[in-house]
């Protein structure tokens, strides 16, 4: 058997071999490989389609307003920015098929405390309670309407304006002290609060009545007023309304 390449000059045979190899590769890429292997836009498109086809579970607040009156009540209250599904869970099925599936309605105390239990990392002034001290074992909804949450009695006196401080103080060691124990509040302060300010303790000895060494009050943290704090007033370092007052 004669090799056809034998008849060709050696250099030409090599060139021909390389040419044939290139042609095979090119033809394979062009005609044999499936398009998905060559073109990334095809799998990009299929992935986008697959992602878009995923089922939606949270319907959003818009469909709730069509049927539920509570929506209008919620709209004006402190929970106005809450989505219905924040508490009631995903409700897409219910929105499409109102009679067959019902969303959940949390009634237990431990659901409200997910947001409203006191936690030192939460922003100052966010309404929080100490669940051990605040009407233990009673479900929150027996006093507060979750669609229009309010304190059972409207805040009076100082808390009416200084709600943030009142809420923070409520979970602090100073909870038992009335505001007027430390602040002298002129009557005029209630009429024009910015013109006539309430006072703050102006002397170290004021806090020292409970917190100095040798004070008659038992159980409070004590310091030696002579060596501790130098020229500063106590509240310039220790914020007395904070639960972590140190």
């Amino acid at each position, binding site marked *: 058997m004669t090799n056809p390449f034998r008849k060709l000059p050696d250099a030409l045979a090599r060139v021909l071999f390389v040419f044939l190899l290139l042609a095979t590769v090119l033809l394979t890429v062009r005609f044999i490989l499936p398009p998905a292997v060559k073109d*990334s836009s095809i*799998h*990009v498109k*299929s*992935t*986008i389609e*697959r*992602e*878009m*086809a*995923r*089922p*939606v*579970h*949270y319907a*959003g*607040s818009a469909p709730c307003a069509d049927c539920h009156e509570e929506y209008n009540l919620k709209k004006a209250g402190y*929970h106005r*920015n*809450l*989505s219905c*599904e*924040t508490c009631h*869970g*995903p409700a897409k099925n219910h929105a499409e098929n109102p009679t067959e599936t019902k969303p959940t309605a949390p009634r237990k105390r431990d659901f409200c405390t*997910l*947001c409203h239990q006191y*936690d*030192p*990392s*939460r*922003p100052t002034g*966010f309404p929080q309670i100490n669940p051990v001290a605040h009407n233990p074992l009673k479900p929150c909804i027996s006093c507060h309407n979750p669609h229009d949450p309010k304190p059972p009695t409207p805040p009076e006196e100082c808390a009416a304006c200084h709600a943030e401080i009142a809420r923070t103080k409520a979970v602090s060691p100073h909870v038992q002290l009335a505001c007027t124990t430390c602040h002298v509040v002129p009557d005029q302060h209630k009429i024009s609060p910015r013109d006539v300010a309430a006072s703050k303790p102006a002397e170290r000895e004021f806090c020292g009545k409970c917190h100095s060494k040798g004070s008659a009050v038992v159980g409070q943290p004590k310091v030696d007023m002579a060596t501790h704090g130098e020229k500063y007033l106590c509240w310039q370092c220790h914020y007395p309304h904070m639960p*972590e007052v140190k």
Partner: protein
Amino acid sequence: MQRRSFVLKLVSLLAALGGSAAAGLRAAASSVTRYGMGIQVDKCIGCGRCVEACKEENGVPPDPFYFRTWVERYTIKKDDVIVQNIDPRITPHQEPVTEGDVLRSFFVPKLCNQCDSPPCVQVCPVGATFKTPEGIVLVDEKRCIGCRYCIQACPYGARYLHPVRMTADKCTFCYHRVTKGLLPACVEVCPTQARIFGDLASNASPLTRFRRMNKLHVLKPHMNTEPKVFYSELDGEVR
């Protein structure tokens, strides 16, 4: 004279071409949606509703170590920084740190930053992860081979290996919701509006207002990933 008129004609032609090209570019830029998110750190109360909603909406495994979005509690002490994941399913439950010299403490919600130059896309050996025209980074679960390079490459730890599919999984900004005009599940349920979602290219949207009214920061700016999740009131200790 002839040369002069030629030069003048050339200049006017170039100017016309340049002008139309610039107008075309501008039109293209304004018509393309680019999704982004704003996070107001001072509003996060760490309730974990976003984490729950994300798992519910996207079928993320319930175990407390698979997350598309998660919330971290930072506790800054005088000589130490403690970071805890606050998922309520973690046992023993992650109680706030109170002993020692605690200076400040706060929550930081985290998720995929949908980087404009995403390291995870660069390293994928099979091209399974890519950026959509809206700037959202997606994973093709049919093409992913589960090699975990992208999980290693992400500076934000935003990816995990799905334990059933054995492919990389990550936040998609709820692609299936936002393309239908809905908000991502985490934004939908956030009770304090700590998360704001919208189109970065839009002239008037809650997100644009958020970006106008706040001093913003992104996570790990030195990585040059160009994140599209913007944080306001972010503490310097947050990594």
